[in-house]
């Protein structure tokens, strides 16, 4: 049942993303229900205007009850909440996940996080984190102090 819900929901989401894509977001790779790749364009009038980034989503069979694993790959945006290994410090990806959230809503959250940035700089603990972090950001014990950015 959970597996049926998982594939059913993801195929529904994929159709929705292809038919009605959000501005600046495009699915580039979705051959399986294990992982997808999407491009995210920096919004005009922001620090990231004209830049294009790639997000990778990895789903567990318990999706949408469990959050997907979301990281930047390739060109990593310089942002106080984005580490240079692609990990993103965003609460909805971890403890604030809810099954009502979706690939689309996560992309929109990240897009808005970039857009609201006022100073392009890496997280202060970037070097230390990148050295110690595990491959999956979901294994990191995140603490979200700075919700305003």
């Amino acid at each position, binding site marked *: *049942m959970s597996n*049926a*819900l998982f594939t059913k929901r993801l195929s529904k989401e994929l159709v929705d993303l292809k038919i009605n894509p959000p501005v600046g977001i495009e699915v580039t790779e979705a051959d399986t229900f294990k992982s997808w790749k999407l491009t995210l364009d920096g919004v005009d009038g922001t620090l990231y205007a004209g830049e294009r980034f790639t997000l990778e989503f990895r789903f567990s069979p*318990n999706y949408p*009850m469990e959050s997907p694993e979301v990281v930047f790959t390739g060109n990593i945006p310089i942002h106080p909440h984005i580490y240079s290994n692609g990990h993103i410090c965003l609460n909805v990806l971890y403890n604030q996940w*809810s*099954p*009502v959230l979706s690939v689309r809503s996560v992309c929109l959250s990240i897009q808005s996080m970039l857009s609201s940035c006022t100073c392009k700089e890496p997280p202060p603990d970037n070097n230390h984190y990148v050295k110690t972090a595990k491959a999956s950001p979901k294994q990191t014990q995140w603490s979200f102090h700075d919700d305003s950015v």
Partner: protein
Amino acid sequence: MDLNSVVYVESVNSNLICCVCQTPFVDPVVIESCGHTFCKNCITQALLTRSTCPVDRSHISSVNEFRPAAKIIVNMVNELLTYCPNKNAGCTYQGQRQLLIYHLKEECMFAKLACRNEECGEMILKKDLSKHMESCKARMVKCENCEAKVQLSTLEGHKFTCPVKNIECPFCHTTRIQSEHTLHLEECPEKPVTCLHVEFGCSWEGRQCDLSDHIVSCSYEPLKGFFSMYKQRNEALEQENQQLRTNIQELNNTVDLLENQVSAMSDWLSNFTDPKGLSSNSEGQHLNSSAHDILLSGNDHIKNEIENLNFSLVDIDAIMTENMRMQEEIQSVKNICHGLRMQMHYLLMEKRGGEPSVGTTGSVVRTGLNGPIGIGRTVPPNANNSKSGHDTSLESNMRPPRSLGPESPRQEKL
């Protein structure tokens, strides 16, 4: 059946969509504390991961905290129009979602059902099922002897072990199932048998159980080595004989063929020897029509020759007739000559003084008067030559006319 995978005919009001599965509610329930509605299954699963409302993240302590959604919500989702899940297989049904389970179970001909025969295991469209059951390789059939129901594939095997189909041995009158019957016949002690050497001449017959005793005393037993060798030779000779017969037959055929050819040849040749063959033997004519043509033209040529010869014969006849007439003329001239000689003889006798002999004088004179001029010319030289030899000269004068008979008249004419 999973109502979450149902395809709806029309787009559905977003208020009826569960935000976890993002499809119209199935079994909608409401969380008491916050009033949010989800599919019962969706919220149950979500709570296993995290005990908060998926929408507002308010804490939910236990499953007891939700109740069924309002009747109107339940009715609205139940009455949504759906397609039959077997649409792709060919079902054209559209109906309220709540009737879908009934349709699939009772009505849909495109539902796949497992064949009722467990060993078969095939999944068959409902519309094809009854047809399949008639021909299913795993269907049960009744053994016509013991009435037991056996699977079709094992029926043949059952016939050998069927408890009812017992066969009685015709010799010892014991009964057994079919599979053992053939084996029993081989070794039934009561079965009548002949001696193993029956082909060599032993006439012993008896029960199979007595055969071994007989063999011990059978007089053919010690000779069996010789007999089998003899038999082998005989077989080889028969084979050779057969081969020779075949050869003779082939030779006979060849002779017949040659005879036919010879008789055809002689028939053809008879066309040349037997003239009737030209008309009667059409085969001969046919065989060499060119030779026939040559013969015909030769025949015509000969006919012409004969005709020419006939004309010549007529000519010869005319000549002969003339010849005869000439001869007669010559004869009369001879007679005249004779008459003239007699007359001259008479005249000579009369000139010497002697009386001419009487008798033929009168007639001689008369003939002498017929030709005095011609004779007068020839006579004087003869009369002047000599007296003594006149007899011989007269005779010599008479000879030439005799020998030149036929030619002299012509010389005279010329």
